[in-house]
């Protein structure tokens, strides 16, 4: 991001327009962090205040509070501005505790692992 002058901030790709706003940050490892943008630089390194990780498994979700976070830019996929008037999540989703969402995550991971291993076993049968 080039350092834009005061008139350029509305046209440039600078993150300055997102300062002090509540943002959704997607990371390369699939995590979704929410928080207020307090600082950034040309590498898209970011400081999020009041950060929390939103974990979504099926229809369950949980916000795990994290506090003040510094995120290295190379891990950032996307930074989205949250529209506070719009509902952040569909109404059919239910909030659950951190322990329950971790259980749900584990169950989902085991289901995908099982699917993967079953597929491997079937592949040798060569059904084409």
């Amino acid at each position, binding site marked *: *991001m*080039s350092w834009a002058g005061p008139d350029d901030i509305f*046209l*440039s*790709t600078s*993150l300055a327009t*997102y300062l002090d706003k509540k943002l*959704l940050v*997607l990371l*390369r490892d*699939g995590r*979704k962090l929410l928080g207020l943008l307090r600082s950034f630089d040309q590498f*898209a390194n970011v400081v999020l205040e009041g950060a929390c990780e*939103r974990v*979504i498994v099926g229809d369950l*979700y949980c916000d795990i509070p994290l506090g003040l976070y510094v995120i290295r*830019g*190379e891990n*950032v*996929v*996307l*930074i*989205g*501005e*949250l*529209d*506070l008037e*719009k*509902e*952040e*999540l*569909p109404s059919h*989703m239910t909030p659950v505790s951190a322990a329950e969402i971790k259980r749900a995550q584990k169950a989902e991971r085991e289901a995908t692992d099982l699917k993967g291993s079953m597929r491997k076993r079937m592949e040798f049968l060569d059904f084409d």
Partner: protein
Amino acid sequence: MLFFSYFKDLVGREVTVELKNDLAIRGTLHSVDQYLNIKLENTRVVDQDKNPHMLSVRNCFIRGSVVRYVQLPPDGVDIELLHDATRREARGG
């Protein structure tokens, strides 16, 4: 510089950005920079049901390093202009 200039000319057009994590986002190209970071407005995720977290995101900044494709409107490409620019770039670079 060539693609940076090319994207600058496409500001205001509808594009779909496909990311390396397979997320596809449609929106209006607001701005681009030398790293080909992209800012989109009026964004909607292509497969909204699989991405409930993006529901209330209307503007976003996408880091250039995570973009796989930028899908453009079919009339967004002036092939002759692009060819000339590429030849100039190849000669000069």
